[in-house]
């Protein structure tokens, strides 16, 4: 295996789905070997990509842009409708962790039986088992049926198994966001270790931060087409500008990212809400700036977050929760109307609005996300969680470290002699 060899080569690759609904027609088209007739949905079109051994490529784009389709094509789970695909080396796909697990069997049996799916014999899998158990940190649960696992344990075992095969190519779809904090960190370390050992990495995430820290090159997909392909910093900057501009300019397209619903949606008749709630509008204001991505300076701006919502009028008045999270995922601060004893008011349609005011925001330098949750009256059940509803870029003067600056005062005393 020459270190300069090509690991992945895609030429003119596209994937389309037939929108044909009638089963007999689909069957007939497939039998005739021309599934391309009739109405089509193009998930991916005309993609050219070459990836060298040891290179890492990030894939960004909004939901429905074709990211997952591309990963599935590379893994060979899907076959391209057009174009050719060449992939060399053993692939470990972290697409859906634990896809081959059977809930009735124990962890040990599942690992052993999944070996062949990863290209290992049961014997080889047995040899790796202690290391897998160790990494997954699930102890004696390995001999319990998988259905008794917590979701964290399940994912840890699946991750440990999938990455234990020393893959040449690692395909990751948002896998880093799984598991608890400690494990997320360790899985990240393992991916880095595999990467250093020369594995080619294909990484798809909504977190541009993660993508930038892991990948040299980034591919930006938009509506199934390549929007941009180049060095990570450039592409991510362009992508962030694009997303930011869209939020600012209220350039409303129907397909904003799932985590960021449109700025303003039409209220619905209450009947359509049955037991549900939804956010109608989200907006952040600080000084002159209005939008979803703001640039702030430490302690200089008052930040105001406007949230408009609609909840089935038959339900009790909802609560709104704000969580401020650092880019590394640390919860910095939070506030909730229920916790603060604030009662939200609604009109007959169930619509209401609330503004959260954070005076002279004392955040220190860095990037932060604000998550907004529309929740039940006790703040327990989320009707709508919006992760990264707002993004903040904060600058500061001086070298103060940490997330926030606490109000403080130094009191020098003259030493009494």
């Amino acid at each position, binding site marked *: 295996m020459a270190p300069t060899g090509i690991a992945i080569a895609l030429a003119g690759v596209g994937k389309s789905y*037939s929108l044909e609904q009638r089963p007999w027609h689909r069957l007939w088209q497939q039998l005739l070997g021309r*599934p391309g007739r009739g109405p089509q949905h193009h998930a991916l079109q005309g993609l050219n990509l070459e990836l060298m051994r040891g290179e890492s490529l990030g894939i960004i784009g909004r939901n429905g842009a074709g990211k997952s389709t591309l990963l599935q094509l590379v*893994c060979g*789970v899907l076959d391209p409708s057009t174009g050719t695909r060449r992939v060399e080396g053993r692939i470990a796909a972290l697409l859906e962790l634990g896809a081959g697990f059977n809930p009735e069997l124990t962890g040990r049996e599942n690992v052993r039986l999944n070996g062949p799916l990863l290209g290992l*014999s049961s014997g080889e899998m047995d040899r790796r088992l202690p290391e897998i158990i160790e990494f997954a940190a699930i102890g004696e649960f390995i001999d319990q049926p998988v259905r008794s696992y917590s979701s964290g344990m399940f994912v840890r075992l699946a991750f440990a198994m999938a990455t234990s095969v020393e893959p040449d190519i690692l395909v990751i779809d948002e896998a880093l966001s799984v598991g608890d904090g400690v494990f997320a960190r360790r899985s990240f370390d393992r991916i880095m270790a595999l990467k250093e050992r020369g594995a080619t990495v294909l990484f798809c995430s909504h977190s541009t931060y993660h993508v930038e820290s892991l990948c040299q090159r980034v591919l930006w997909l938009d509506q199934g087409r390549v929007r941009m392909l180049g060095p990570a910093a450039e592409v991510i900057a362009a992508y962030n500008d694009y997303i930011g501009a869209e939020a600012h300019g209220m350039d409303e397209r129907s397909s904003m990212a799932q985590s960021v619903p449109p700025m303003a949606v039409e209220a619905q008749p209450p009947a359509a809400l049955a037991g549900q709630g939804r956010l109608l509008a989200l907006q952040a204001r600080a000084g002159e700036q209005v939008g979803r991505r703001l640039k702030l300076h430490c302690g200089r701006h008052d930040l105001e977050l406007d949230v408009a919502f609609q909840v089935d009028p038959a339900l009790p008045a909802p609560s709104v929760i704000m969580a401020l999270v650092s880019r590394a995922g640390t919860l910095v601060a939070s506030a909730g109307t229920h916790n603060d004893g604030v009662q939200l008011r609604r009109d007959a349609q169930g619509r209401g609005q609330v503004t959260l005011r954070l005076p002279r925001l004392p955040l220190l330098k860095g990037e932060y996300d604000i998550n907004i949750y529309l929740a039940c009256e006790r703040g327990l059940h989320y009707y709508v969680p919006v992760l990264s509803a707002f993004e903040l870029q904060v600058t500061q003067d001086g070298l103060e470290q940490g997330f926030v600056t606490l109000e403080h005062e130094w009191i020098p005393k003259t030493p009494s002699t």
Partner: protein
Amino acid sequence: MLPALRQALQLAWPLARRDIAARYRGSVAGLLWTLIGPLAMVAIYAAVFQGVFKARWPGSGAGESDGLAYALRLFAGLIVFSAFSEVASRATRLMQDNASLVKRVVFPLELLGLALVLQVAVHLAVQLGVLTLLVLLTGSGLQASLLWLPALLPWLLLLLLAVAWGFSALGCYLRDLQHLVPLAMSGLLFLSPVFYPFDQAPEVLRGLLWLNPLSAPIEAMRAAWFGLPMNFELLGLQLVGALLALVLGLALFRRLRPGFADLV
């Protein structure tokens, strides 16, 4: 050819074992259920046909009690039929049941059909073991014609594999098969020479029996166990049919396969 088969079996066997283990995990009787089911059916059918309708198996030797002889011949045929019926019914939703393997993992899907057949083969083996035991216990003894089994069983398994591939591919596209096939199987039971020997069937049925791919395996199975004469004309014709079905089933599967991931 042989190394490829070996490799395929190595991959398919864990899947089959996984499904067998998962199926009986937590049930007290476990694998015994593969016996209890068919034996209960044999008892019921034998009681009805022999006890109520006074059916007799022509040519069963004297000295044996009629009821038992009838039940054993019934059992031999039913073993073949229930294997076929189980494969056909489960194949129609095979891809849907393994959706995660179809959609999320790179997996040679032909092996799912093979794994299904292997599972049923395990049940088949257990049931044949019991048949042996019963035959020995009733004192009729093992026949020399049992030497046919090494040829007969692979044939049956190939037929099952053809059905598994064909039905699992079609079942992806035509969901109605899931409901239709089990129904058709209960009808097919009476159109197969399970309750009566092939050559005793009325003329009306005879034509259908020639077309029924199960006629020859069922007849041959019974002939092997009880030393009855083989109908070589039927055997030869249906063997060719089974081989054709295997080629056709695999071709159909390969042809339809690209659509699976979009459909399950």
